[in-house]
Each structure stands twice: as structure tokens, then as C-alpha cells.
């Protein structure tokens, strides 16, 4: 029985590996094996010197960091307060946070576009006009951050909820308070450190989401990394694939760095003995 199980495991692992690794391998081969020239890394060396690579990558990273910061600042206090003060509101928040999953990005961005068009027309004589201009600054489009915060809500809420479920928030807060900690101190010193795993997961998912997001950025006319890759692809097929491979590596490296920053013993739920 056990042996057949292991066999099955290997079969499943093999199939999964084929599914993921074959396209990856094919991409790599496509970028380095130029017909008539043999193996060459030209496609990769050209990336750095191509117009827009560094700026679009930096823009994506800035957007990711800002989105992570905003969404965590918004959701961590909300989730903790929900646990401590208003457990009955949980279903409501859960539904609200899941809505972005239901609304397709294309509908979402269509809504944003119409607001962005309508706003300046009607508000042209008010100071809000400047706000509309400012959030669409191509150097740092705040409107994208706002959109990404909404799109990251379901993932962040779920990650935090799982983390909070694994600890007894109320008892930890009360224990800290009976040790002389004020409520803010109790939250920062006793609850947050035990949510490290959950915070990391939330940051992870948000980072991956922002780095790979295309629809909203493209339709709003901004040029972060994903859009830049797409634009390059139109003119230089080989290089666009090379960039995709590179972006995969970059994303991996960033996720690894994030995991490293979280520390070696990041556990959401330490086993209780």
C-alpha cells in the first residue's frame, strides 16, 4: 500500500513537473538558441540596454511596496478589531473582501476609467481636479495602488484570517494586559509577532499580484513591468520571452528575499504541546 502510494506520488510529481518545466525549458531554449548562430545570450544582454526596462521594473516594485504597505495598514487593524470587538461583523467583512474576486478586472477597470473621465469634467472648477491629475501621475500612478489594494483584499484578508484563527487573540491580549501592557502595546508586542507568518503570506501574494498585473495597468495607460514586456513582445519576440524568463527569476528572487526577511522560524501556527 505504502509503496503504491509513493509510486503515485512520483507519477503526480512527474506530471506536474512536465506541465511546469516543459514550457519554461522551451522558453529558455528559444531565447538562447538562435537558428544559424548556435547558443547565444544576446537576448539577455540586450535587455538591460533596452529603453524602459529599468524604469518599468522600478515602477512595478514601487507599486508593489506601496500596495503592500497600504493594504496591511488597512487590513491588520481591521482583522484584529474584528476578532476582538465585533465577531458578528465577520461575515460582512468577508463578503466585502471577497467581492474583488467576483468582479472581473476588465469590469473593474472600465469602472475606474469612467470615473476618471467623469471626474475632471464635473470637478474642473474645484481643487479636486488637481487630485484627479495627481493620482494619474505616470511617474507614480496612485490610482494603480488604489486598484491593486482592492484587488489584493481577498488574498490579504484570507491570509490574515488564517493567521488570526491559529492564535487565541483575546487571551494573548488579556495576558499581555495583565502583565502591565496597554492595549496598543499588547497588540504590537503580543499579537503582531505571532502574525508574522500571516503578514508574510499576505505580502507574498500582494507582491506576486502587483508584479504580474496587466489588465488594469494597460487599460489605464500606465507602463509597469508586465505592460512593458507585452509592448516589447510586439517588436522583438525573442527578447520578450527572455524578459519573461528574467521576470520569473526576479519574482522568485523577491519572494525568496521576503521569506528570508521573515526569518527562519516563521510559523503561522506553532504546534501546541
Amino acid at each position, binding site marked *: 500500500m505504502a509503496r503504491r502510494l509513493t509510486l503515485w506520488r512520483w507519477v503526480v510529481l512527474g506530471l506536474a513537473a512536465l506541465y511546469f518545466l516543459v514550457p519554461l525549458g522551451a522558453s529558455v531554449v528559444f531565447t538562447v538558441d538562435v537558428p544559424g548562430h548556435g547558443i547565444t545570450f544576446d537576448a539577455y544582454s540586450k535587455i538591460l540596454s533596452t529603453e524602459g526596462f529599468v524604469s518599468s521594473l522600478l515602477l512595478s516594485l514601487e507599486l508593489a511596496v506601496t500596495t503592500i504597505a497600504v493594504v496591511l495598514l488597512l487590513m491588520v487593524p481591521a482583522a484584529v478589531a474584528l476578532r476582538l470587538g465585533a465577531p458578528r461583523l465577520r461575515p460582512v467583512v468577508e463578503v466585502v473582501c471577497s467581492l474583488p474576486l467576483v468582479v472581473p478586472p476588465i469590469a473593474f477597470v472600465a469602472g475606474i476609467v469612467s470615473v476618471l473621465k467623469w471626474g475632471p469634467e464635473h470637478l474642473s472648477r474645484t481643487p479636486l481636479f488637481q487630485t484627479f491629475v495627481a493620482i494619474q501621475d505616470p511617474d507614480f500612478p496612485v490610482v494603480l495602488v488604489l486598484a491593486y489594494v482592492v484587488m489584493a483584499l481577498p488574498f490579504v484578508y484570507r491570509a490574515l484570517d488564517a493567521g488570526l484563527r491559529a492564535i487565541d487573540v483575546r487571551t494573548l491580549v488579556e495576558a499581555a*494586559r495583565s502583565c502591565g501592557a496597554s492595549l496598543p502595546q499588547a497588540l504590537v508586542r503580543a499579537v503582531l509577532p505571532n502574525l508574522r507568518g500571516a503578514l508574510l503570506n499576505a505580502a507574498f501574494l500582494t507582491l506576486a499580484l502587483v508584479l504580474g498585473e496587466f489588465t488594469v495597468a494597460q487599460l489605464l495607460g500606465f507602463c509597469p513591468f508586465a505592460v512593458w514586456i507585452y509592448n516589447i513582445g510586439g517588436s522583438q519576440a525573442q527578447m520578450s520571452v527572455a524578459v519573461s524568463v528574467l521576470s520569473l527569476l526576479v519574482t522568485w528572487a523577491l519572494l525568496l528575499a521576503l521569506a528570508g526577511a521573515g526569518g527562519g522560524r516563521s510559523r503561522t501556527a506553532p*504546534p501546541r504541546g
Partner: protein
Amino acid sequence: MTHTMTATTLEKAVSEQAATVEFRSLRREFGSTVALDGLDLTVRPGEFLALLGPSGCGKTTALRMLAGFEHPDSGAVLVDGEDVTHVPAHRRDAGMVFQSYSLFPHLNAVDNVAFGLRMRKVRTAERRSRAAELLELVGLGDKAERYPHQLSGGQQQRIALARALALRPRVLLLDEPLSALDAKVRLSLREEIRRLQQELGITTLFVTHDQEEALSVADRVAVMRAGRLEQCAGPAELYGRPATAFVAEFVGTMSRIPGELEDGTVQVLGQRLPADGEVPDGAVDVLVRPEAVRVHADEQGSARVVATAFLGAVVRVTVRLADGTEAKADLPAHEAAGLGAGSPVGVSLPERAVLVAERIQK
């Protein structure tokens, strides 16, 4: 595991300032349920007082009010005569041990104990040495670097106890600290808690629903029911002279035997005995402890043995009386040898006053 617990001179300092705790007509409602219905109770300095009662009787609410986690609708909580009802929890000067494991999972044992000292901004070296001292006190000096998930339930509760004592609180609050532990650990830990409490001389409130636990460790036991105090007395008095039928039946085992009350004496099992308890004359129930009921084999006896349970030194015999009521009796093992289920027996009571209560219709 044996632990030698010696209170250092540092710890002795606590006993000099042992506090009095007073609950004054505390009242608290949660929606439609009344958790506390005018609770009055005074805990003497250095006393170990157990709050005992069935679940929902308000004992935990009372303790949490002293800790500052609940606030009364009316009434006051006083510590050393000073009204602390509106003092926030973190300034209450009360150490608390919780029912569930409440150690901070991200901190090791010594940092858990030192948590309160860190909140009070005590210097690192000083708080580590004090925390190490407290770990010694609860017999876990060698586990300082362990994380909570690496410790057993009993060890975690010891560390929680050390953490509760770290700030030299004026009162120690124990909220069913043993209920999550297995029987053996529970027994040894409760003895240690008692010894530690006596050495430190700290005023202690101990919430439990286990009457054996309460009777074995506390100086006095306060039995609560439906948000009110039923009786507060020493364990021996509580067991021997329960003030009400509720206390009598909640503390220890009691059998109800029907009797007839007349002029302060009660006719029961063919005997006439002096009666305790304020009940009008007429049909009553006589409350008797199993150790006070005598059972002897008797071919003419109208009672029958229903079941026997071997408890070690004694055998608990359940007999059905002629009128169908069941009574429990504890007999020495050798006397119970011949009494199998179905044996005819005679039942009698010793010639002394018995507690009577109003008849409960069954």
C-alpha cells in the same frame, strides 16, 4: 518530577503587602442572562480563596472584573479599600493565569516571564535575572530557552504562573488553570500552586468548577450559584455543615432520602433524628453523605443493592430503598465483599443531626 520551591527573600517582600479584596454588590448582565446578581464577597489578606460553582454561575465574570477585563453594571471592586472599578486592566496590579495556554508563542520561557518587566522598562540584565529566578521558583530553571510549543501543558502553566508573579502583584488570579491538564499533572500542580501561594503569602483567587480541587487547596471556598454567593466557608465547614441544599449537593456527594419532619426532628428510615435546616414541617428530603449511610446485609431488609463501585479504600454501594429512591453509601472494602447487585440489605443512619431540605418531586 519533584521540585523544590524556595521563596527567596526577594519574593518574601510580597507577603508584607498582601491585599484585601472586596466585591460590593456586583451586578452584570450579558443581554438577557444575569452573570452576577449582587455579589458580595471579601477576601482576606494572604488568603487562598476558591470560587466554586457550576458553569454559568458568574465565578469567572467575578474574577475577570477583578482583573479589569469586565466592568460591572453596578457595584464596586475594592483592593485594600481602594476602589479599582475604573482602573484599566494594565494598572490593576493583578497577576493572572488563564485556563487555556496563554503564553506568547513567539517568546521563549524566560522572555515570557520577563514580558511584564519589559513593559515596565526594567533593564535587560535585571529582568533576565529576575525571570530566571522565577523560573527556578516554579521548578523550570533548566527550560528557560524553550518555546511554549516545546513544553508540556503542565510546564506551560507553571511558566504562566511565573509570568503572573513577575511584577509582584498584590493579588494572584487563577482562572481554572488546571482544567486543560491531565489528572496526574493537575494533582501535582495544584499542590505546588498551594505551596507557592503559602510561601509568598499572596492573596489568591482561584476559579474552579471542580469541588475536590477547591476543597483540597483553598483556605476558604465561596460557592456561587446564578450570580450570587451561596456560602463562603472553610472546606471542612462547607462539607460538614453546608448552609443550603445547593451547597450540600454541589460539594461532595449527597443522597436524598425522603423523611417526615415534625417539631425539629425527622422520621427517616425508621429512625427519629434531630434535623438541621429551615424547612416547614411535613414531607422533606434528608441529605446524607455516603460515608454516613450504613448498609448491612439483611435477609429481611427492604432495600436492594443496585450497583457497587470499587474506589480503592472504600466501595461505593448504591442501594434502592423500599420506596424506590436511590442512596449511595461508602463501605470499607471487606464489609462490601458479600454485597452483590440484588442483595437484600438494611440501611440506617448514625444517631446525630441530619440536614433536611424541601422535598423535590421526582
